């Protein structure tokens, strides 16, 4: 493959700017004191500090996972700033007028207007800047239908009982190394509570922005959908370009009760590092949904285009009978990016169903692995899974791997797995060119065609954004 195809997939990162804002950060390093300091800064209830300390002590006994198909130098956990917040942050989030205009500008520049006049129609946004939530829109409107949508810090003050009841129930503190770290030091995130029989009146969204070059981002999202309720949730992320790597170790927990449904979509565009692999975000994230109730449904849709390294397996634990888990994923890697991503579908209840559609696209020298587990437990009579994992290679130097794990302990289960690998070749591009279609447009048409099954699952606001984002990533003048 000629160099021309590869230059097509390199596009300058648009969100790489830094916001010059004074930060209230604690010194580098991690210790029990730091954990206590974070908890104290946030004026947390006692159970929260206990939870954090338990996680921290657990973390000390654990080892970083070595099994992912990625390589990176050892992370110095003592060289990370675990809490960084804009100094001008108002004590309590009231009206948006109190938010530092620099922050509003930052989010506006990212295409996420927070001000009353410009905010996105019918999408409520929680904007998180480094370690803290800076604004949540449409809170009052949501409250009218009983929906709670706020930062997790605020939830700890206003609804501590709900947090205490659900936090860590899906992902326990010792679940894995990065989950333990997050549980010890998480600084903010979003909390959503949808009461019984309520359809959330608008889409909810969190936008994460890492600004500080030395800070890690450890946010925590908890969504609880009570019986008969439903919600669609969108998550977006960007970060400035730094030579150093920033660690992002988040946790997302979802709980769906009887007949409840949660759609969780992510468009991840963290800074990926430069073409030589310098800088970029380490995106080590644990996401898991619990279909606790019968007929409940959790659907993950992700479009992963950024990060130097992605280690992420949004999963579903299907406990309720007839519950449904879905995972739709597009992961694009370019340059020196490495992704080891996939899902786990754990079937516990009867007649549980899961669908996995994974599309991996690797360009340049990147490495893209799908890793998935389908586990059918002994009581999961009639459980069904369908998995489809497609990989597309652009150029000759990228690699794609598929690691499917299937464990079936019930003989009535049906598990299907399909996989394919294709390649955008010079001849395909020549065919497009011969019909007058430029290589940029050709690659983007091929890629959107390849990803269509997943894009169709995204909420409308995001589908357009995802298509545009992939097109941007793949757009460049022909060398």
């Amino acid at each position, binding site marked *: 493959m000629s160099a021309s195809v590869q230059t097509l997939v390199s596009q300058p990162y648009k969100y790489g700017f830094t916001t010059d804002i004074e930060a209230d950060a604690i010194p580098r390093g991690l210790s029990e004191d730091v954990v206590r300091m974070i908890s104290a800064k946030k004026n947390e209830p006692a159970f929260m500090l206990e939870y954090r300390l338990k996680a921290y002590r657990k973390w000390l006994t654990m080892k970083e996972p070595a099994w992912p198909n990625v390589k990176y130098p050892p992370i110095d956990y003592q060289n990370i700033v675990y809490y960084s917040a804009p100094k001008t942050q108002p004590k309590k989030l009231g009206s948006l007028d109190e938010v530092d205009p620099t922050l509003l500008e930052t989010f506006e520049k990212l295409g996420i207007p927070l001000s009353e006049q410009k905010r996105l129609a019918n999408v409520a946004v929680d904007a998180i800047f480094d370690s803290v939530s800076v604004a949540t829109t449409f809170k009052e409107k949501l409250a009218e239908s009983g929906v709670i949508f706020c930062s997790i810090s605020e939830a700890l003050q206003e609804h501590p009982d709900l947090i205490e009841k659900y936090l860590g129930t899906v992902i326990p503190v010792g679940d894995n190394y990065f989950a333990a770290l997050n549980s010890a030091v998480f600084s903010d995130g979003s909390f959503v509570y949808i009461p019984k029989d309520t359809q959330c009146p608008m889409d909810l969204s969190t936008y994460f922005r890492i600004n500080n070059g030395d800070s890690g981002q450890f946010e925590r999202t908890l969504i609880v959908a009570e019986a008969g309720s439903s919600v669609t949730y969108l998550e977006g992320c960007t970060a400035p370009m730094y030579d150093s790597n920033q660690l992002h170790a988040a946790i997302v927990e979802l709980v769906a009760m009887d007949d409840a449904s949660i759609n969780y979509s992510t468009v991840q565009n963290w800074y990926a590092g430069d073409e030589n692999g310098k800088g970029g975000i380490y995106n080590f994230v644990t996401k898991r949904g619990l279909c606790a109730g019968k007929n409940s449904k959790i659907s993950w849709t992700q479009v992963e285009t950024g990060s130097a390294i992605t280690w992420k397996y949004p999963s579903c634990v299907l406990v309720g009978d007839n519950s449904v888990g879905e995972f739709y994923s597009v992961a694009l890697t370019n340059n020196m990016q490495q992704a080891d991503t996939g899902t786990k579908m754990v079937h516990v209840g009867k007649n549980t169903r899961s669908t996995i559609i994974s599309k991996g696209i690797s360009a340049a020298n990147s490495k893209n692995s799908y890793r998935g587990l389908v586990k059918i437990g002994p009581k999961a009579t009639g459980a069904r899974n369908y998995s489809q994992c497609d990989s597309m290679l652009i150029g000759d130097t990228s690699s794609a791997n598929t690691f499917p794990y299937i464990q079936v302990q019930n003989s009535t289960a049906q598990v299907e797995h399909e996989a394919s690998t294709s390649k955008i070749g*010079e001849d*395909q591009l020549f*065919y*497009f060119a011969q*019909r*007058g279609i430029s290589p940029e447009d050709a690659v983007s*048409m091929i890629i959107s*065609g390849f990803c269509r099954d997943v894009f169709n699952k995204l909420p409308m606001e995001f589908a357009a954004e995802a298509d545009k984002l992939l097109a941007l990533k793949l757009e460049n003048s022909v060398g």
Partner: protein
Amino acid sequence: MINDNSEIILSVRDLRATVDGTEILKGLNLEVRAGEIHAIMGLNGSGKSTFSKVLAGHPDYEVTAGEIQFKGQDVLELDPHDRATAGIFLAFQYPLEIPGVSNRDFLRVAFNAHRKARGEEEIDVFDFDDLIEEKLDLVKMDVSFLDRSVNEGFSGGEKKRNEILQMALLEPALSILDETDSGLDIDALKTVAGGVNQLANADNAVVLITHYQRLLDYIVPDFVHVMADGRIITTGGKDLAKQLESRGYEWVLEEFRAGVTA
């Protein structure tokens, strides 16, 4: 239709080209005027398909000498997609499959790329649908073809008809049909030839690359060229094709060798 005063569409002078360092075209000359239909015949390996790919700008081929002018414009300076929008169309011998991209989208984007290159506004989905459905009749294709992925799972004949559909849509000044007849049964061949005949007019030109006289029963050429060893060694009228059919190529090659050594 031969008219010595018509516009020169294509002028190729002493064209030499290599692939992976091996010279395939060794001094090819050809002139094609508006209104003309040319057939290029020759044995396997004579360089016919290479010539079509070089004209269209396939990146694997390097032009080492000579020139190609299309309507007075230097073709070698143009990227492949700019050659296409300028009016050079290649019907592929093996049309590529593009999974996930619908034929309809592909055709519309191609059509709009041509319009854009001419400085015209892109047309919307609805106007395009009206336009393309009209063109479908020409190649006797069902509208359901539009919603399938480009060439994916198409039979050999369907792929070739899809090529002619694209030709009908894009209305190129120069169409090069690279062994469009290969692998077609007689009905498909008639359909394809009928489409080409309807599209040929006084303002455009067609170059047919073929092994067999058979296609030329349906598309009657004004000129027949024989290619061997990377150049055109003889040119005649439609009777030449018939002679080749009955006598084979050897006598042409012998006459050529005799001429070269004489």
